[in-house]
């Protein structure tokens, strides 16, 4: 089909089978390799992107399903205050090691903090429960996001 959708704010059109995974279309056809494949089964969250603002596993979305919709990937999180705080704090806390999980974490964290700037540590853990990390042990990720949340609320970095 001729698929048309908004990708990171730009209208995009390409010819694809509607049955292909959004993940593959992003990585293979559109060369947006920030989005990672971990499990390919919806379990790990490495492939998380936003469709119409909602966090979804791009390995479980058929390409046809984004026709006319807005897709935001890790490349399109932009330079707003929340996205910047998430990126900077993940780096400064050591919330990323091998990096496979990091794009999915960043996408989920930006969605979480844009919608729930007052999210508690527990709530952040709940919102990111679908993002598996095999390296960091999670504490540093949650520390980073708690700090990013505080920055977002104007409480300043440490």
């Amino acid at each position, binding site marked *: *089909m001729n698929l048309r959708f908004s990708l990171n704010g730009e209208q995009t059109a390409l010819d694809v*089978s*509607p*049955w*292909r*995974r959004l993940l*593959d279309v992003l990585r293979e056809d559109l060369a947006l390799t920030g989005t990672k494949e971990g499990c*390919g*089964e*919806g*379990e790990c*969250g490495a492939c*998380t992107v936003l469709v119409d603002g*909602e*966090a*979804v*596993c791009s*390995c*479980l*979305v*058929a390409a*046809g*399903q984004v*026709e006319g919709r807005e897709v935001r990937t890790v490349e399109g999180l932009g330079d707003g205050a929340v996205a910047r705080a998430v990126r900077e704090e993940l780096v400064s806390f050591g919330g990323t090691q091998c990096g496979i999980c990091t794009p999915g974490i960043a996408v*989920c964290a930006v969605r979480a903090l844009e919608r729930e700037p007052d999210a508690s540590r527990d709530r952040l853990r*709940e*919102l*990111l*429960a*679908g*993002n*598996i990390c095999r390296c960091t042990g999670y504490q540093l990720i949650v520390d980073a996001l708690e700090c990013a949340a505080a920055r977002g609320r104007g409480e300043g970095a440490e």
Partner: protein
Amino acid sequence: MTAYLRPNTLEEALAVREAHPEYTILAGGTDLLVSGHRVPPPPGIVDLFDLRPLRGIARDGDGSLRLGAATTYLDVLSSDTGREELSILRAAAREIGALQIQARGTLGGNLVTSSPVGDTLPVWLALGAEVELSSAGRGARRVAYDAFCTGYRQTDMAPDELVTAVTIPPPAPGTRRFWRKVGTRRAQSISKLMIAATARLENGLIAEPRIGLGALADRPIRGVAVERAMAGRPPDEDTAARAARALAAEITPIDDVRSSADYRLTVATNLVARFVRLLAEPA
């Protein structure tokens, strides 16, 4: 070439279903697409995700609740309609997968996949829910959940039908509700077992108990013997023990990778007893 169709109305969806029973019905894709890319592409896709007439929760004129088949778990969690009645559905929804799955997974998908570990299914049994099925030729019909699920991953849905809604009759005043899912962790875990239960007290005695059990048989089942053991008795320790014994006689759980039969039986009987004790607590 796979055709892609996204109907905007129920009529359109039913017409496509009748004309192309061989097309794949796709909603959130969280069951279908787990292995979807490993099978040959289907001749066509009918995308029901975000089909507005099938999405959301509303109160019907007769006081019953109507939940559209394309309602997502996130929709359930954010809806204010029927908050009290749906407390156990919300509790189940909160524990399904994680955010990304809750954002896409739908009630209709859970019903049609009809897995013995489908988390919403015991809830429908406990709430006395009916499944609404619709076709272009025959219109809508409603079947009780027990009649909808006809066996291991089997349903009563015909090839020209779609699941369009779940309806829940208005509850009797004073109904108490209970939900427990036992898994390895809170998020992203497949249930070892689940129990959904409702009942109320009438003059201090248990009335209209409904127990839905998941992952304890080849399909979600009512705990009929447990219900009989509780009905008409006070919510005391004696009844709790009777209910637990009745359950042990009623089910023969299986050993599998997720848990042992022993564990399942012990936990399930403990949870049934806990539900009886809950009924004794002030509302």
